C-alpha cells in the first residue's frame, strides 16, 4: 500500500471517468478482435532502437468487420498462398547458397526452442544446408531451457552462443524496465541485431534464416515479405542517436560510462555495412507453412524437447517461451501496458491455427491473463538490483538501486494507462476497464 501513496493522482484512474487518458499514443477506445483474443491496443513490431518512453505506438488495426490484421493474414495463409510454389522457391534459394566444401552456408538464430529446432532441422536434413546456429543467451537460463538448448546442439548442429557482458546486460535491462517498462528490450535488440553483424564479420555466410514472421507481433508488413525488412535491423543515422532502454547511446555513454564497444552487440548494423555485406535475411515461415504447435510435437519427437515443469505464469501452456526466467515478467509488463497478457497471445495463436475456438480462448484469457509471475520473482528481482558488489560506482545514479516488490509495484502503477485501468478504492485493486468477451 506504500506504493499507492506514491501514486501522485489516483483521480485519473477513477472508474467514473468518461474519457480517461490514453498513454503511449494508444487508441483511446479499446476494441477486441472478433476472431481472436487480441485487442486494438496491441503494438506491432517496432524499431526498438528508436524506442523512447514517449514513443507513440503503432498498433494492430481492426478492419471494418472488427477483425485484426493478424487474423486476416492467417486466413490468407490458409487459403490463398500456394505453398508448393513457395517450397520450390526455398529449394532454389538453398540450391544457390548451399556450400560445396562443407563450410557453413547459412545462419539460424535461435535458442533451441521449438521453432528454432524445426528451422535448423529442416534446413539441414530436408534442404541439405549446413547451418550454423547462433544464440543470444537468455538473461537467466531455466533448467529446461538449458536442456533444450543442449538437445538442440546434440541433434546435430554447431552453435555459437553469445552471452553478453553480464554487468552491462543487467544494467541495460534494469534501465529498460525503469524507463519504458520493457525489461526484455535489450535482449530483443541483441537477439535481432547481433546475428547480422556476426555474419557480416565472418564474410562467408550470406544467408540468415529467421522463423515465422507472424509470431513476431503479427506485423502486417511482413506478411508478403520473404525477407526481414532492413529497417528493423539496420540504421542510417548517427550511432549516438540510437536508443536502448529508452535512452540514447549518447546519454548511456555519458551517464553510465558505457562505451561503443559495450553497446555494440545491441545496436543494429549500419546500413552501408549491410549493403556491402550482401547478406540476405529471410523468413523460413514465408516458404514453409508455420504451425507453432506442430513445432512442439516435431521438436519433442525428433529432439527430446522438454517442457517447463509447470504452466507458464499468465497462460495455459508450458512449451513456448520457456528459456528465460525473465520471460514471465516480460508478459506481465505487456499486460500492464496494453491490457494484453500471455494467455491472450497464446490463445490468439491457437485460435488462428485452429486448435481452439474463440470462446475457449476467451475463457482461457479470463482464467490466466495477467497472473502475477511468482515463480522466479526472487531471482529476477535480484538480477535487476543494482548491487554494491557489481555496480558500486553506479549505485548513486539510481534513486532506488534495490529492486524489490514494493518498488516493482510502484513502477507498475506508473505505467498503467488510465484508459485501460481503473482503480477500485473500495476493493483496493486494479481492474481492466474493458474485459474481453
Amino acid at each position: 500500500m506504500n506504493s499507492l501513496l506514491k501514486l501522485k493522482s489516483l483521480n485519473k484512474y477513477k472508474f467514473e471517468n468518461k474519457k480517461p487518458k490514453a498513454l503511449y499514443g494508444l487508441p483511446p477506445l479499446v476494441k477486441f478482435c472478433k476472431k481472436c483474443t487480441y485487442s486494438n491496443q496491441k503494438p506491432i513490431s517496432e524499431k526498438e532502437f528508436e524506442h523512447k518512453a514517449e514513443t507513440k505506438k503503432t498498433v494492430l488495426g481492426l478492419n471494418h468487420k472488427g477483425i485484426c490484421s493478424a487474423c486476416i493474414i492467417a486466413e490468407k495463409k490458409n487459403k490463398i498462398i500456394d505453398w508448393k510454389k513457395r517450397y520450390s522457391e526455398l529449394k532454389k534459394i538453398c540450391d544457390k547458397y548451399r556450400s560445396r566444401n562443407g563450410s557453413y552456408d547459412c545462419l539460424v538464430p535461435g535458442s533451441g526452442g521449438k521453432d528454432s529446432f524445426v528451422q535448423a532441422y529442416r534446413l539441414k536434413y530436408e534442404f541439405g544446408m549446413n547451418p550454423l546456429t547462433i544464440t543470444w543467451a537468455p538473461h537467466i537460463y531455466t533448467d529446461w531451457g538449458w536442456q533444450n538448448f543442449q538437445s538442440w546442439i546434440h541433434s546435430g548442429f554447431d552453435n555459437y552462443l553469445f552471452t553478453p557482458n553480464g554487468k552491462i546486460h543487467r544494467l541495460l535491462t534494469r534501465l529498460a524496465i525503469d524507463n519504458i517498462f520493457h525489461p526484455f528490450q535489450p535482449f530483443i535488440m541483441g537477439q535481432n541485431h547481433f546475428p547480422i553483424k556476426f555474419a557480416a564479420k565472418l564474410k562467408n555466410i550470406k544467408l540468415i534464416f529467421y522463423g515465422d514472421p507472424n509470431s513476431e507481433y503479427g506485423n502486417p508488413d511482413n506478411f508478403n515479405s520473404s525477407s526481414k525488412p532492413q529497417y528493423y535491423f539496420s540504421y542510417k543515422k548517427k550511432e549516438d542517436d540510437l536508443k536502448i532502454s529508452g535512452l540514447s547511446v549518447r546519454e548511456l555513454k555519458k551517464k553510465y560510462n558505457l562505451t561503443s564497444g559495450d553497446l555494440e552487440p545491441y545496436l543494429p548494423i549500419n546500413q552501408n555495412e549491410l549493403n556491402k555485406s550482401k547478406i540476405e535475411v529471410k523468413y523460413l515461415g514465408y516458404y514453409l507453412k508455420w504451425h507453432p504447435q506442430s513445432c512442439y510435437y516435431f521438436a519433442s519427437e525428433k529432439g527430446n524437447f522438454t517442457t517447463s515443469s509447470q504452466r507458464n505464469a499468465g497462460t495455459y501452456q508450458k512449451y513456448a517461451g520457456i528459456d528465460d526466467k525473465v520471460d514471465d515478467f516480460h508478459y506481465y509488463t505487456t499486460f500492464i501496458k496494453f491490457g494484453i497478457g500471455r494467455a491472450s497471445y497464446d490463445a490468439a495463436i491457437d485460435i488462428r491455427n485452429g486448435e481452439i475456438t474463440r470462446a475457449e480462448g476467451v475463457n482461457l484469457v479470463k482464467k490466466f491473463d495477467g497472473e502475477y509471475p511468482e515463480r522466479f520473482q526472487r531471482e529476477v528481482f535480484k538480477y535487476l538490483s543494482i548491487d554494491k558488489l557489481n555496480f558500486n560506482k553506479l549505485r548513486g545514479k539510481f534513486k532506488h538501486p534495490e529492486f524489490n516488490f514494493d518498488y516493482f509495484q510502484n513502477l507498475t502503477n506508473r505505467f498503467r494507462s488510465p484508459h485501460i485501468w481503473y482503480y477500485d478504492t473500495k476493493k483496493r485493486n486494479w481492474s481492466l476497464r474493458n474485459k474481453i468477451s
Partner: protein
Amino acid sequence: MSKIRIIPRMDIKNSNLVKTIKLDGLRVIGDPNKIAINYYNNLADELLFLDTVASLYGRNNVSQIISELSKNVFIPITVGGGIRSLNDALSMFKSGADKIAVNTAAIKKKNFLNNLSKEFGSQSIVTSIDAKKIENKKWRAFINNGREDSGLDVIEWSKRAADKGAGEILLTSIDNEGTYKGLDFDLFNSVSAQVKIPIILGGGFGSLEDLAKAKKMNVDALSISGALHYKKFSIKNIKKKL
C-alpha cells in the same frame, strides 16, 4: 496371475480425440466414437476417457460420447476430467460410466474421495495421479491436467488416496507421456510397494519390452494412448505377448 488389463486411453477435447506430449498440445487424431468401437472389437479390456480441458472450462463433454457408446460397447468405461462434485460424478455414472477418475478435486477437497467411495463404492472410484519426476525415486503429483504442481509427493499421496477409499490408481508419468520412450517402472514400483489397490500404469509405452517388464513386475493394468492411436501396436499383438 491373470493377464494385465490393456486399457486404451482416449484424451478428448470437445468432440475430438487428441494426443498430447507431456500433457501439453492438442493434436487432433479423429473421431473418438469410431476409434473406441474399433478398440472394443479388438478386445480392449476397458476404455478410459479423459476430458483434457474440463478443468479449464468447467464442463465435461465426455458424457455425451459415452452415452452413445455405452449402447454398443460392453466393457468397463472409466471417465475423468473436471469431476468436482458428487453431482458431477452422478451425471457421469448416469451417462454410462462404470468408473470415474478424479485428480485435482481429490487433492484440493479433503473429503472428496471419502464421499465418493461412500456414495458410489470404492470399486468405481479411480484416483488419477499425474507424476512428474523431481529427482531419483521422487515424484510430485500434478493437477489441472499436468499444468500445476500440487506440492504433494506421489508416494505419500497414493497411500492417502487408497486410505480415503480409492479403488484403483491411474498412475501416469508426465515426463514419458507421448514420448514412447518406455514406461516409468521405478514410479510403479515405488507406489505399488506402498498401496494394496490395483495400479493402472501409463505414460510412454513404446515397445514390447515394456510388456515383458510389466509382466515381471506384476503391473495390474496398462493405459496406452499414442502407441495404439498411431497404430504402432495393435491390442491383439500386445495381448499375444502377455
